[in-house]
């Protein structure tokens, strides 16, 4: 597929899960493609990084479900901070384990799953719609009932994939990309490099094959598609670019210059602009 082809299958108002973690292996080319579209009113489910920041900056997010939104080396995503300060997005803030359990419930096609995470914290206070559930056994323990996080679509980025949708991560961490796919109705995978199926195992051990073709509906080859987040071992996070992004986010004029320089063209133009910037 193409980036535009994937975005063409998404609709305003959808619940969209985004893989990766913080500022690591985010499907940024797809996020940028959403920015170029008129998609809006999205519910985004993410271990958030600049994916959330950019979508919030463009006013595309109605509700965010997350455990955090961070750029790792910049603790708080600046656009997310601003959206929160200005109250422009609704937030469902849960524990990371609860987010995982919500995806697991959706993957198992259950309406909820019991979990101990979230007890004794303000998570229940800030989410009045959350409920607890009591064990029906002698222990009578009260647990958090984590509702299923059913996704209309999942977007993930991996190092390698074949044209059938078998995808491989070559970095140190799978994050929860497989679970995002299992929780979603439509699943889209972007990859650094599209290879023949038999080449996948030459690149990494069997357990690096994180998603298989039954879990994926569309594949797009997007070299440096996670930029400026990391996609180890293909590339590390572009810290200089991330600093420039975070700095520009704090100032309206600087942000419109940043948008003009990087985000108003297509993906090819973005990648060319990044190369030009790194040379100067």
């Amino acid at each position: 597929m193409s980036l535009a082809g994937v975005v063409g299958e998404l609709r305003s108002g959808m619940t969209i899960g985004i893989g990766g973690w913080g500022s690591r292996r985010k499907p940024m080319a797809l996020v940028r493609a959403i920015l170029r579209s008129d998609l809006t009113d999205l519910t985004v489910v993410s271990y958030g990084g600049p994916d959330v920041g950019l979508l919030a900056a463009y006013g595309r997010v109605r509700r965010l479900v997350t455990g955090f939104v961070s750029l790792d080396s910049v603790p708080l995503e600046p656009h997310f901070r601003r959206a929160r300060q200005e109250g422009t997005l609704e937030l469902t803030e849960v524990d990371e384990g609860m987010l995982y359990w919500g995806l697991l419930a959706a993957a198992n096609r259950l309406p909820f799953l019991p979990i101990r995470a979230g007890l004794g914290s303000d998570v229940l206070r800030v989410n009045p719609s959350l409920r607890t559930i009591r064990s029906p056994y002698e222990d009578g323990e009260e647990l958090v009932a984590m509702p299923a996080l059913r996704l209309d679509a999942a977007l993930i980025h991996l190092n390698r994939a074949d044209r059938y949708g078998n995808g491989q991560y070559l970095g140190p961490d799978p994050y929860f990309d497989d679970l995002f796919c299992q929780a979603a109705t439509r699943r889209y995978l972007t990859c650094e490099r599209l290879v023949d199926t038999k080449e996948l195992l030459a690149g990494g051990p069997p357990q690096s094959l994180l998603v298989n073709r039954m879990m994926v509906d569309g594949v797009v080859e997007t070299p440096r598609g996670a930029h400026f987040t990391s996609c180890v071992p293909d590339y590390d996070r572009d810290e200089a670019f991330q600093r420039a992004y975070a700095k520009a986010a704090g100032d309206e004029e600087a942000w419109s210059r940043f948008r003009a320089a990087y985000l108003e063209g297509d993906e090819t133009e973005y990648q060319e602009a990044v190369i030009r910037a790194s040379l100067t």
Partner: protein
Amino acid sequence: MGEITSLRDAIADLAFDGATVALEGFTHLIPVAAGQEIIRQGRRDLTLVRMTPDIVYDQMIGAGCARKLVFSWAGNPGVGSLHRFRDAVQNGWPVPLEIEEHSHAGMANRYVAGAAGLPFAVLRGYVGTDLVAQTPNIKPITCPFTGEVLTAVPALNPDVGIVHAQRADRAGNVQMWGITGVHKEVVLASKRSLVTVEEIVDHLDPRPGAVILPHWAITYVAEVPGGAHPSYAMGYSERDNDYYQAWDAISRDRDAFGDWLTSTVMREVRAILGDQA
């Protein structure tokens, strides 16, 4: 943890009278040798847990090890009934056997909950079956969001979990492949555990579909080549279908079973103790 020891020492340390013991393995990698060692050591009043009790549990029940069976299917696969199991339920021979019957999905979810440290599991099973009326710990649970009535089953946390696997390294990390069933879950859910393996090697090579149990999740590892016989260990042995066939005749008759027990499992004990054993 993951201490490498002998089968005899591991069972002597882990299994005690009255313990809840789970031997798992779905047609493949069934820890039969470990079950027979429990017979040999004369354990009694065990609550035996297993998704698919087959020959090894028939042997343990016939030898009088068990007080209760928690299960979701029982039989001699491809052959017929388990006659020692039948005799215990119907006639209380050699000792009465209480049963607690679940579904496969229910049992698997019970292990998963036990492994996750949760008191119960939630699933959409048991609907339209008689199991709910037979097994009191199957409970309805209402989703607080949708109002849907689902099924709750209590976590399983056996005192001892035992499985067979292909390989371990010298640090006690275990690698298994093929049909691995609930191997991982039962080891993680059990308070203490034993993995019998075909061989102990210097290095575990990555393999497609292989499951690694880290040494810190396991109490003991024992090298028992052929320890899954008459089931099989993919890459090491074939399933001994003749044994399953032959078991039918042995298990139908109390005396034939007694002869089998003394001439095979207890042979080693008789050799040590002489004729009084």
